[in-house]
Protein backbone atom coordinates (compact mmCIF):
# COMPACT_ATOMS: atom_id res chain seq x y z
CA UNK A 1 0.00 0.00 0.00
CA UNK A 2 1.36 3.44 -0.84
CA UNK A 3 1.87 5.84 2.01
CA UNK A 4 -0.57 8.74 2.29
CA UNK A 5 1.34 11.96 1.66
CA UNK A 6 0.35 14.75 4.05
CA UNK A 7 0.77 18.50 3.80
CA UNK A 8 -0.10 21.40 6.02
CA UNK A 9 -1.28 24.67 4.49
CA UNK A 10 -1.09 28.19 5.85
CA UNK A 11 -4.71 29.34 5.72
CA UNK A 12 -5.35 33.05 5.93
CA UNK A 13 -8.92 32.91 4.75
CA UNK A 14 -8.25 34.51 1.37
CA UNK A 15 -8.63 33.09 -2.11
CA UNK A 16 -4.97 32.18 -2.69
CA UNK A 17 -4.64 29.68 0.13
CA UNK A 18 -8.03 28.22 -0.79
CA UNK A 19 -6.84 27.57 -4.34
CA UNK A 20 -3.38 26.38 -3.33
CA UNK A 21 -4.88 23.69 -1.10
CA UNK A 22 -7.39 22.60 -3.73
CA UNK A 23 -4.64 22.20 -6.34
CA UNK A 24 -2.68 19.90 -4.02
CA UNK A 25 -5.72 18.05 -2.70
CA UNK A 26 -6.66 17.20 -6.26
CA UNK A 27 -3.35 15.37 -6.52
CA UNK A 28 -4.37 13.00 -3.73
CA UNK A 29 -2.47 14.67 -0.88
CA UNK A 30 -4.07 14.81 2.59
CA UNK A 31 -4.09 18.46 3.62
CA UNK A 32 -4.77 20.12 6.98
CA UNK A 33 -4.69 23.85 7.64
CA UNK A 34 -2.93 26.08 10.14
CA UNK A 35 -4.14 29.56 10.89
CA UNK A 36 -2.07 31.87 13.05
CA UNK A 37 -3.63 34.35 15.43
CA UNK A 38 -1.25 37.26 15.98
CA UNK A 39 -3.76 39.63 17.57
CA UNK A 40 -3.60 41.90 14.52
CA UNK A 41 -5.61 39.65 12.22
CA UNK A 42 -8.50 41.22 10.40
CA UNK A 43 -10.49 38.02 10.72
CA UNK A 44 -12.92 37.50 13.57
CA UNK A 45 -12.89 39.62 16.74
CA UNK A 46 -14.73 42.55 15.19
CA UNK A 47 -17.99 40.70 15.89
CA UNK A 48 -18.11 41.92 19.43
CA UNK A 49 -17.60 45.54 18.55
CA UNK A 50 -20.61 45.94 16.31
CA UNK A 51 -24.09 47.05 17.22
CA UNK A 52 -26.16 44.14 18.42
CA UNK A 53 -29.08 44.78 16.05
CA UNK A 54 -26.76 44.92 13.10
CA UNK A 55 -24.83 41.95 14.30
CA UNK A 56 -24.99 39.64 11.43
CA UNK A 57 -21.69 38.35 12.73
CA UNK A 58 -19.00 38.20 10.13
CA UNK A 59 -17.79 34.71 9.38
CA UNK A 60 -14.21 33.74 10.11
CA UNK A 61 -12.87 33.24 6.61
CA UNK A 62 -10.13 30.81 7.65
CA UNK A 63 -12.77 28.49 9.13
CA UNK A 64 -14.96 29.01 6.10
CA UNK A 65 -12.13 28.13 3.70
CA UNK A 66 -11.34 25.00 5.70
CA UNK A 67 -14.97 23.99 5.55
CA UNK A 68 -15.15 24.50 1.79
CA UNK A 69 -12.11 22.31 1.39
CA UNK A 70 -13.20 19.72 3.94
CA UNK A 71 -9.96 20.01 5.87
CA UNK A 72 -9.16 20.28 9.57
CA UNK A 73 -8.01 23.68 10.77
CA UNK A 74 -5.61 24.21 13.65
CA UNK A 75 -5.68 27.76 14.97
CA UNK A 76 -2.49 28.67 16.76
CA UNK A 77 -2.25 31.48 19.28
CA UNK A 78 1.11 33.13 18.59
CA UNK A 79 0.36 36.48 20.24
CA UNK A 80 3.36 36.43 22.59
CA UNK A 81 6.00 35.02 20.23
CA UNK A 82 4.88 37.30 17.44
CA UNK A 83 5.79 40.44 19.39
CA UNK A 84 9.45 40.03 18.54
CA UNK A 85 8.53 39.99 14.83
CA UNK A 86 6.64 43.27 15.22
CA UNK A 87 9.26 44.95 17.41
CA UNK A 88 12.44 44.02 15.56
CA UNK A 89 11.84 42.86 12.03
CA UNK A 90 15.19 41.95 10.54
CA UNK A 91 13.93 42.83 7.07
CA UNK A 92 12.15 45.99 8.19
CA UNK A 93 8.62 47.20 7.79
CA UNK A 94 6.48 47.61 4.69
CA UNK A 95 4.53 50.79 3.91
CA UNK A 96 3.21 50.84 7.48
CA UNK A 97 4.16 48.81 10.56
CA UNK A 98 3.69 45.54 8.67
CA UNK A 99 6.76 43.33 8.94
CA UNK A 100 5.53 41.10 6.09
CA UNK A 101 8.76 39.33 5.20
CA UNK A 102 9.72 38.50 8.78
CA UNK A 103 6.12 37.55 9.43
CA UNK A 104 6.09 35.06 6.56
CA UNK A 105 9.43 33.60 7.66
CA UNK A 106 8.08 33.25 11.20
CA UNK A 107 4.84 31.56 10.11
CA UNK A 108 6.54 29.15 7.75
CA UNK A 109 9.06 28.33 10.50
CA UNK A 110 6.17 27.54 12.87
CA UNK A 111 4.56 25.41 10.16
CA UNK A 112 7.85 23.60 9.65
CA UNK A 113 8.09 22.82 13.36
CA UNK A 114 4.49 21.63 13.21
CA UNK A 115 5.06 19.19 10.34
CA UNK A 116 8.11 17.78 12.12
CA UNK A 117 6.08 17.23 15.29
CA UNK A 118 3.12 15.75 13.47
CA UNK A 119 4.71 13.63 10.78
CA UNK A 120 3.54 15.66 7.81
CA UNK A 121 5.60 15.83 4.63
CA UNK A 122 5.52 19.40 3.38
CA UNK A 123 4.09 22.90 3.65
CA UNK A 124 1.81 24.78 1.25
CA UNK A 125 1.23 28.51 0.98
CA UNK A 126 -0.86 30.50 -1.46
CA UNK A 127 2.02 32.86 -2.29
CA UNK A 128 2.40 34.13 -5.83
CA UNK A 129 5.58 35.66 -7.23
CA UNK A 130 5.18 39.43 -7.58
CA UNK A 131 1.83 39.56 -5.82
CA UNK A 132 2.85 41.59 -2.78
CA UNK A 133 5.53 44.26 -2.62
CA UNK A 134 7.50 42.85 0.29
CA UNK A 135 7.08 39.16 1.02
CA UNK A 136 6.07 37.85 -2.40
CA UNK A 137 8.82 39.04 -4.71
CA UNK A 138 11.07 36.84 -6.79
CA UNK A 139 14.01 37.76 -4.57
CA UNK A 140 12.22 37.48 -1.22
CA UNK A 141 10.34 34.22 -1.70
CA UNK A 142 13.57 32.18 -1.45
CA UNK A 143 14.37 34.14 1.74
CA UNK A 144 11.17 32.76 3.30
CA UNK A 145 12.11 29.18 2.33
CA UNK A 146 15.66 29.55 3.59
CA UNK A 147 15.25 31.54 6.79
CA UNK A 148 12.24 29.54 7.96
CA UNK A 149 14.28 26.33 7.74
CA UNK A 150 11.60 24.77 5.54
CA UNK A 151 13.82 25.04 2.44
CA UNK A 152 12.51 22.87 -0.36
CA UNK A 153 9.67 21.50 1.76
CA UNK A 154 7.82 24.72 1.06
CA UNK A 155 5.59 24.44 -2.00
CA UNK A 156 3.72 27.36 -3.55
CA UNK A 157 1.29 25.54 -5.85
CA UNK A 158 0.02 28.69 -7.59
CA UNK A 159 3.49 29.88 -8.55
CA UNK A 160 5.57 26.70 -8.45
CA UNK A 161 6.41 26.71 -12.14
CA UNK A 162 8.16 30.04 -11.73
CA UNK A 163 10.25 28.74 -8.87
CA UNK A 164 12.92 26.07 -8.46
CA UNK A 165 11.69 22.52 -8.13
CA UNK A 166 10.83 21.54 -4.56
CA UNK A 167 11.11 18.22 -2.81
CA UNK A 168 7.37 17.37 -3.09
CA UNK A 169 7.79 17.66 -6.87
CA UNK A 170 11.07 15.71 -6.98
CA UNK A 171 9.70 12.92 -4.84
CA UNK A 172 6.60 12.70 -7.03
CA UNK A 173 4.28 13.59 -4.13
CA UNK A 174 2.82 16.16 -6.51
CA UNK A 175 3.24 16.57 -10.23
CA UNK A 176 4.81 19.86 -11.34
CA UNK A 177 2.70 19.71 -14.51
CA UNK A 178 -0.42 20.10 -12.45
CA UNK A 179 0.87 23.11 -10.53
CA UNK A 180 0.64 26.71 -11.77
CA UNK A 181 2.94 29.51 -12.86
CA UNK A 182 1.00 32.60 -11.77
CA UNK A 183 2.94 35.80 -11.26
CA UNK A 184 2.31 39.50 -10.83
CA UNK A 185 -0.33 41.53 -9.13
CA UNK A 186 -3.23 40.60 -11.39
CA UNK A 187 -5.91 38.56 -9.64
CA UNK A 188 -7.37 37.35 -12.91
CA UNK A 189 -5.70 33.91 -13.03
CA UNK A 190 -6.81 33.20 -9.48
CA UNK A 191 -10.35 34.27 -10.27
CA UNK A 192 -10.45 32.05 -13.32
CA UNK A 193 -9.12 29.10 -11.36
CA UNK A 194 -11.69 29.76 -8.62
CA UNK A 195 -14.39 29.66 -11.26
CA UNK A 196 -13.04 26.42 -12.63
CA UNK A 197 -13.15 24.88 -9.15
CA UNK A 198 -16.64 26.26 -8.59
CA UNK A 199 -15.73 28.66 -5.77
CA UNK A 200 -17.70 31.86 -6.05
CA UNK A 201 -18.04 33.24 -2.54
CA UNK A 202 -14.52 33.93 -1.37
CA UNK A 203 -12.89 36.76 0.59
CA UNK A 204 -10.62 39.21 -1.21
CA UNK A 205 -8.81 41.17 1.47
CA UNK A 206 -7.65 44.48 0.03
CA UNK A 207 -4.38 45.47 1.68
CA UNK A 208 -3.27 42.41 3.56
CA UNK A 209 -4.36 39.97 6.17
CA UNK A 210 -3.76 42.13 9.20
CA UNK A 211 -4.27 45.58 10.69
CA UNK A 212 -0.55 46.33 10.53
CA UNK A 213 -0.96 47.16 6.84
CA UNK A 214 -3.48 49.86 7.74
CA UNK A 215 -1.94 53.36 7.91
CA UNK A 216 -4.32 54.65 10.54
CA UNK A 217 -3.91 51.62 12.77
CA UNK A 218 -0.13 51.74 12.43
CA UNK A 219 0.00 55.40 13.39
CA UNK A 220 -1.98 54.63 16.56
CA UNK A 221 0.41 51.80 17.38
CA UNK A 222 3.42 54.07 16.77
CA UNK A 223 1.83 56.64 19.09
CA UNK A 224 1.41 53.98 21.78
CA UNK A 225 5.07 53.05 21.56
CA UNK A 226 6.24 56.65 21.50
CA UNK A 227 4.33 57.69 24.62
CA UNK A 228 5.06 54.54 26.56
CA UNK A 229 8.73 55.01 25.77
CA UNK A 230 9.17 51.47 24.43
CA UNK A 231 7.97 49.10 21.76
CA UNK A 232 5.57 47.07 23.86
CA UNK A 233 1.92 46.03 23.82
CA UNK A 234 -0.52 43.70 25.45
CA UNK A 235 -3.40 42.08 23.63
CA UNK A 236 -5.89 44.56 25.15
CA UNK A 237 -3.82 47.48 23.80
CA UNK A 238 -3.90 46.24 20.25
CA UNK A 239 -7.60 45.35 20.45
CA UNK A 240 -8.41 48.85 21.74
CA UNK A 241 -6.54 50.40 18.80
CA UNK A 242 -9.28 48.97 16.58
CA UNK A 243 -12.06 50.65 18.53
CA UNK A 244 -13.27 54.22 18.92
CA UNK A 245 -11.79 57.62 18.33
CA UNK A 246 -8.34 58.03 19.85
CA UNK A 247 -7.31 61.55 20.87
CA UNK A 248 -4.18 62.54 22.73
CA UNK A 249 -4.64 65.98 24.31
CA UNK A 250 -1.50 65.66 26.47
CA UNK A 251 1.57 63.43 26.22
CA UNK A 252 0.69 61.56 29.43
CA UNK A 253 -2.78 60.35 28.41
CA UNK A 254 -5.09 59.67 25.53
CA UNK A 255 -8.86 59.38 25.43
CA UNK A 256 -10.64 56.54 23.62
CA UNK A 257 -14.20 57.57 22.76
CA UNK A 258 -16.80 55.11 21.50
CA UNK A 259 -18.21 56.08 18.10
CA UNK A 260 -21.38 54.06 18.35
CA UNK A 261 -23.33 51.81 20.64
CA UNK A 262 -21.48 48.61 19.75
CA UNK A 263 -18.13 50.20 20.53
CA UNK A 264 -19.59 51.57 23.76
CA UNK A 265 -20.60 48.07 24.79
CA UNK A 266 -17.16 46.80 23.92
CA UNK A 267 -15.44 49.53 25.96
CA UNK A 268 -17.69 48.71 28.93
CA UNK A 269 -15.61 45.57 29.32
CA UNK A 270 -12.56 47.73 30.10
CA UNK A 271 -14.10 49.91 32.82
CA UNK A 272 -12.17 48.21 35.60
CA UNK A 273 -8.86 48.73 33.82
CA UNK A 274 -9.19 52.41 32.89
CA UNK A 275 -10.51 55.61 34.40
CA UNK A 276 -13.69 56.09 32.39
CA UNK A 277 -16.13 58.88 31.65
CA UNK A 278 -19.76 58.86 30.65
CA UNK A 279 -22.14 61.77 30.13
CA UNK A 280 -25.17 61.69 32.41
CA UNK A 281 -26.99 64.93 31.61
CA UNK A 282 -27.11 64.19 27.87
CA UNK A 283 -26.84 61.10 25.73
CA UNK A 284 -23.18 60.56 24.91
CA UNK A 285 -20.42 58.07 24.45
CA UNK A 286 -18.42 56.07 26.96
CA UNK A 287 -14.74 57.02 27.00
CA UNK A 288 -11.62 55.54 28.57
CA UNK A 289 -8.53 57.43 29.68
CA UNK A 290 -5.35 55.56 28.81
CA UNK A 291 -2.40 56.86 30.82
CA UNK A 292 -1.93 58.60 34.14
CA UNK A 293 -4.16 61.65 34.26
CA UNK A 294 -4.24 64.40 36.90
CA UNK A 295 -7.46 66.09 38.09
CA UNK A 296 -6.81 68.80 35.53
CA UNK A 297 -6.31 66.21 32.77
CA UNK A 298 -9.57 64.52 33.72
CA UNK A 299 -11.32 67.86 33.52
CA UNK A 300 -9.94 68.34 30.01
CA UNK A 301 -10.89 64.79 29.02
CA UNK A 302 -14.41 65.41 30.35
CA UNK A 303 -14.74 68.56 28.22
CA UNK A 304 -13.54 66.57 25.24
CA UNK A 305 -16.02 63.74 25.81
CA UNK A 306 -18.79 66.33 26.29
CA UNK A 307 -17.93 67.65 22.83
CA UNK A 308 -18.88 64.24 21.39
CA UNK A 309 -22.18 64.11 23.34
CA UNK A 310 -25.58 65.50 22.45
CA UNK A 311 -24.82 68.36 24.84
CA UNK A 312 -22.03 69.79 22.70
CA UNK A 313 -24.06 72.97 22.04
CA UNK A 314 -25.01 73.51 25.70
CA UNK A 315 -23.16 75.44 28.40
CA UNK A 316 -22.95 72.59 30.81
CA UNK A 317 -22.65 68.84 30.50
CA UNK A 318 -22.49 66.56 33.50
CA UNK A 319 -20.41 63.39 33.42
CA UNK A 320 -19.75 60.48 35.70
CA UNK A 321 -16.07 59.80 36.22
CA UNK A 322 -15.21 56.31 37.50
CA UNK A 323 -11.85 55.14 38.70
CA UNK A 324 -10.32 51.70 38.31
CA UNK A 325 -11.52 50.95 41.83
CA UNK A 326 -15.12 51.55 40.69
CA UNK A 327 -15.47 54.70 42.83
CA UNK A 328 -17.18 57.43 40.85
CA UNK A 329 -18.00 61.09 41.10
CA UNK A 330 -19.87 63.65 39.04
CA UNK A 331 -18.24 66.44 37.12
CA UNK A 332 -19.93 69.35 35.30
CA UNK A 333 -18.00 70.91 32.42
CA UNK A 334 -18.31 73.23 29.46
CA UNK A 335 -17.89 71.16 26.26
CA UNK A 336 -14.86 72.03 24.17
CA UNK A 337 -15.68 73.92 21.01
CA UNK A 338 -14.56 72.58 17.63
CA UNK A 339 -11.65 75.07 17.58
CA UNK A 340 -10.42 73.82 20.91
CA UNK A 341 -9.83 70.32 19.56
CA UNK A 342 -6.76 70.62 17.34
CA UNK A 343 -6.28 68.16 14.52
CA UNK A 344 -3.02 67.06 16.12
CA UNK A 345 -4.94 65.43 18.99
CA UNK A 346 -6.53 62.93 16.61
CA UNK A 347 -4.49 59.77 16.24
Amino acid at each position, binding site marked *: MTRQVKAVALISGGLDSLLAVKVVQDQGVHVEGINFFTGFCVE*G*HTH*AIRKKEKAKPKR*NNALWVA*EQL*GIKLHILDIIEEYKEVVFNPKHGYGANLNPCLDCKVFMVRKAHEWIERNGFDFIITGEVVGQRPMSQRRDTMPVVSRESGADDLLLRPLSARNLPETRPEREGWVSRDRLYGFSGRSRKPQMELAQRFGFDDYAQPAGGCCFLTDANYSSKLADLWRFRGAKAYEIDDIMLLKVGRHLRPRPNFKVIIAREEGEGRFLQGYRKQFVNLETVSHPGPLALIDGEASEEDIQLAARLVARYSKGRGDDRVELQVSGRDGVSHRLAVVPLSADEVPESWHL
Partner: protein
Amino acid sequence: MKTVILDARRLLCPMPVIRVQDRLADLEPGTRLVAYCTDPGALIDIPAWCRINGHHIVETRTEGDDYIVVLEVGRGGNDRSI
Protein backbone atom coordinates in the same frame (compact mmCIF):
# COMPACT_ATOMS: atom_id res chain seq x y z
CA MET B 1 -21.48 11.68 30.99
CA LYS B 2 -18.64 13.95 31.98
CA THR B 3 -19.25 17.67 31.49
CA VAL B 4 -16.51 20.27 31.44
CA ILE B 5 -17.10 24.02 31.73
CA LEU B 6 -14.95 26.49 29.83
CA ASP B 7 -15.03 30.20 30.63
CA ALA B 8 -14.15 32.10 27.45
CA ARG B 9 -15.86 35.35 28.46
CA ARG B 10 -14.27 38.65 27.44
CA LEU B 11 -12.24 36.93 24.76
CA LEU B 12 -12.69 37.99 21.18
CA CYS B 13 -12.87 35.54 18.29
CA PRO B 14 -10.91 33.53 17.44
CA MET B 15 -9.63 33.23 21.04
CA PRO B 16 -12.75 31.37 22.29
CA VAL B 17 -12.27 28.90 19.42
CA ILE B 18 -8.60 28.45 20.35
CA ARG B 19 -9.54 27.88 24.01
CA VAL B 20 -12.12 25.26 22.98
CA GLN B 21 -9.62 23.59 20.63
CA ASP B 22 -6.89 23.45 23.29
CA ARG B 23 -9.28 22.23 26.00
CA LEU B 24 -10.64 19.46 23.77
CA ALA B 25 -7.15 18.10 23.23
CA ASP B 26 -7.26 16.52 26.73
CA LEU B 27 -10.84 15.26 26.66
CA GLU B 28 -12.15 11.81 25.88
CA PRO B 29 -14.68 11.34 23.07
CA GLY B 30 -18.22 11.69 24.38
CA THR B 31 -17.28 14.34 26.94
CA ARG B 32 -19.48 17.42 26.92
CA LEU B 33 -17.96 20.85 26.95
CA VAL B 34 -19.97 23.94 27.79
CA ALA B 35 -18.25 27.12 26.62
CA TYR B 36 -19.39 30.49 28.02
CA CYS B 37 -18.50 33.35 25.70
CA THR B 38 -19.33 37.04 25.41
CA ASP B 39 -18.34 37.50 21.76
CA PRO B 40 -21.43 36.68 19.65
CA GLY B 41 -19.08 35.47 16.91
CA ALA B 42 -18.43 32.41 19.06
CA LEU B 43 -21.90 31.12 18.14
CA ILE B 44 -20.73 30.93 14.53
CA ASP B 45 -17.03 30.19 14.85
CA ILE B 46 -17.10 27.42 17.48
CA PRO B 47 -19.71 25.37 15.58
CA ALA B 48 -17.77 25.89 12.32
CA TRP B 49 -14.55 24.73 13.97
CA CYS B 50 -16.38 21.71 15.44
CA ARG B 51 -17.88 20.73 12.07
CA ILE B 52 -14.50 20.67 10.35
CA ASN B 53 -12.70 18.95 13.20
CA GLY B 54 -15.25 16.22 13.85
CA HIS B 55 -16.99 17.34 17.05
CA HIS B 56 -20.74 17.64 17.59
CA ILE B 57 -22.66 20.74 18.55
CA VAL B 58 -25.39 19.83 21.03
CA GLU B 59 -26.83 23.30 21.55
CA THR B 60 -26.12 27.00 21.21
CA ARG B 61 -28.02 29.51 23.34
CA THR B 62 -27.93 33.00 24.80
CA GLU B 63 -28.35 33.70 28.52
CA GLY B 64 -28.13 37.37 29.49
CA ASP B 65 -24.78 38.60 28.16
CA ASP B 66 -23.46 35.07 27.68
CA TYR B 67 -23.36 33.14 24.43
CA ILE B 68 -23.21 29.48 25.30
CA VAL B 69 -22.06 26.63 23.10
CA VAL B 70 -22.55 23.04 24.24
CA LEU B 71 -20.59 20.46 22.31
CA GLU B 72 -19.60 16.84 22.49
CA VAL B 73 -16.09 15.65 21.76
CA GLY B 74 -16.17 13.54 18.61
CA ARG B 75 -14.81 10.07 18.19
CA GLY B 76 -11.57 10.19 16.29
CA GLY B 77 -12.10 13.87 15.65
CA ASN B 78 -10.14 14.66 18.78
CA ASP B 79 -6.90 16.12 17.61
CA ARG B 80 -4.05 15.61 20.03
CA SER B 81 -1.45 16.71 17.59
CA ILE B 82 -1.17 20.33 18.72
